[in-house]
């Protein structure tokens, strides 16, 4: 009944490309995944900068990627490479002195970047949801779990009976492998793994098109890590949401994702399927990263690390950001900034070695 009468302020804000906002739990359950011809999320040349006394810190500098519905992308990279900054920017949760300097975040065709605060608030949870790094503390200690999930629903215009809301929350809890009575519990009564499951249940409570999962297992022990990843995986299949998983554990990430994006110094330097990245890494940084992952079958004396440290993101030198640590560095690397090069099979690499327009001795352009 409420679908026909969504001429309220909430619906007016919605652009014509959007379906009506759900106002009851039934609407929510019926809400589909939208236009399947468009990517679920299409990020174009996104830039997130921080103003600091030393200058402008380019934490995320011209990142582009697209995810189809139900696709799972893992973003990996060293600490400080900008993966969390990117995740926050996708939610438009970048805090001052940070700001989005340019680019587009097309969510099912709609650009999030120009949205005002209220429009973005309504998009959060309903269309793009965050499962945070430290779900351990992501719950309000003085509220029952179900109330915390209700809050998100109510503030997105869901007006339904307490029983319907509660039954929805119970379904969500069951889906993440928790018992119904967890809804009536307080956060301090739950274990770390349970809290993380609650975070996943909360994130999927409105069937978002995209879930940003920022290191959802970093605070858990390895056994629970695996269980939580399997839960996330199952929920993702159920809802058909696209997932951006941010992590640095290559092994964990490879099991979960369809594609891997490798970030370095604010740039997405290599992106391809899990198989492509692991079996035939292209970018020299990806190669070194894969080499530094321990292999269960192969016996090695010592793991190779990557010499050097990532550069400070203020006043980056001209040329390639990885050049100072790159084993394949050549003259153009220190002068010319590498471009995002499509090398086929939807595989993108940001390195002169794969750019047909740049002459490199070790060029791998065929």
């Amino acid at each position: 009944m409420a679908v026909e009468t969504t001429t309220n302020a909430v619906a007016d804000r919605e652009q014509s490309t959007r379906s009506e906002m759900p106002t009851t739990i039934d609407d929510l359950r019926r809400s589909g995944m939208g236009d399947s011809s468009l990517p679920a999320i299409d990020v174009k040349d996104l830039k997130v900068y921080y103003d600091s006394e030393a200058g402008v810190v380019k934490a995320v500098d011209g990142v582009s990627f697209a995810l189809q519905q139900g696709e799972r992308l893992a973003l990996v990279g060293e600490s400080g490479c900008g993966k969390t900054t990117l995740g926050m920017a996708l939610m438009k949760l970048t805090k001052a002195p940070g700001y989005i300097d340019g680019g587009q975040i097309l969510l099912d065709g709609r650009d999030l970047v120009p949205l005002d605060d209220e429009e973005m608030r309504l998009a959060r949870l309903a269309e793009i949801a965050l499962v945070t790094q430290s779900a351990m503390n992501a719950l309000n200690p003085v509220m029952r779990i179900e109330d915390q999930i209700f809050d998100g629903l109510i503030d997105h215009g869901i007006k339904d009976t307490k029983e319907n809301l509660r039954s929805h929350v119970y379904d969500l809890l069951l889906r993440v492998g928790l018992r119904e009575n967890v809804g009536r519990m307080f956060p301090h009564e739950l274990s770390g793994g349970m809290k993380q499951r609650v975070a996943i249940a909360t994130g999927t409570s409105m069937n978002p098109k995209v879930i940003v999962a920022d290191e959802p297992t970093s605070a858990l022990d390895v056994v629970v890590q695996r269980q939580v990843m399997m839960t996330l995986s199952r929920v993702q299949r159920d809802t058909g949401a696209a997932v951006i998983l941010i992590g640095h554990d290559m092994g964990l990430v490879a099991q979960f994702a369809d594609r891997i994006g490798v970030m370095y110094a604010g740039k997405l330097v290599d992106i391809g399927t899990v198989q492509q990245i692991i079996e035939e890494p292209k970018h020299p940084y990806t190669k070194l990263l894969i080499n530094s992952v321990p292999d269960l079958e192969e016996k090695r004396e010592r793991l190779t690390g990557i010499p050097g440290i990532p550069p400070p993101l203020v006043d980056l030198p001209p040329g390639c950001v990885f050049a100072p640590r790159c084993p394949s560095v050549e003259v153009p690397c220190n002068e010319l900034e590498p471009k995002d090069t499509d090398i086929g099979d939807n595989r993108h690499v940001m390195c002169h070695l794969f750019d047909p327009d740049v002459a490199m001795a070790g060029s791998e352009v065929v």
Partner: protein
Amino acid sequence: MTVDYLARRIGMFVAVIFVATSFNFFLPRFTGQDPIATRLELLAAEGVTTRAEDYAALIETYNAKFGLDRPLVLQYLTYLSTAVRFDFGESITKYPTRVSELINQAMPWSIGLLVTSTLLAFVVGTLGGAVLAWQHGPKAAFELILPPFFLLAAVPYYLLGLILIWLLAFQAKLLPLGGGYAPTTLPDWSDFGFLWEVFKHSLLPALSIVLASIGFWALGMRSMMITMQGEDYMLQAEAKGLTKARAFFRYAVRNAVLPQTTALALTLPHVVSGAILVERIFGYPGIGRVLYEAITGFDYFVIQGVVFIIVLAIAFAMLVIDVIYPLLDPRISYSSA
């Protein structure tokens, strides 16, 4: 177990009152001051003179009258058995007025003034401090309004009271200098004119308490709110797309107010002691003034009565806080010690 918890708290409540009232019985008696002699000195000062040979007999009569000639232990037992019935005997300095009558007259004045002004300062200060720390709120206005209160928080409120009297009552003549109501009016609580009179007289003392304590509450709340905003659940509240009002009240303020509540409970004793000074300065007919006059006259029975009531009030407030705290913060359970 809730019953267990309550039983323990109530046991504590009774123990605190017992210990405090016992101290209150013995302390004035160990000072060596004789209340009867003090009373006669006061009478002498008023021109009532006694012949020297009658003096000893008079003291003896008085002592017998008030039971002060009996052994201390017996006096103590009588005191305990009568105090539980709120019977504190008769005042020495204001004989034959009963102590309970003095308290009954003064109590409404103090409760009306102190509870109102303390709660007002708590609510205004806490909310002001919360908004001051909230990045999304009408911060600028509060940044102008609140800092002077931080300054006033450093000024003791009896001193502030004197300044206010000088400025508003003596110089500007806007408000009465002191007292609970004008001496020319007859107390009649059904008369609107009298109520207005009472309100005008309570403004200055209330103002001195409120002005001096808003800053205290605002500072405490502000720093708690800043801590809260760094919490992951605040980020999560934003990521959940909550309205700012909900994130503010249900997530930030709800958590930040917990230490404030504890502070309120701990402040209550200071409210009482502070009241003595404020009521003295403003000549306010409250319990603080009764206590002050009793102490200067070494009126054992009034001291015992007033302090007993104060101890009871504070212990009861603590009991209430103890009982409601687990409701405010589910992490504190009734079962833990």
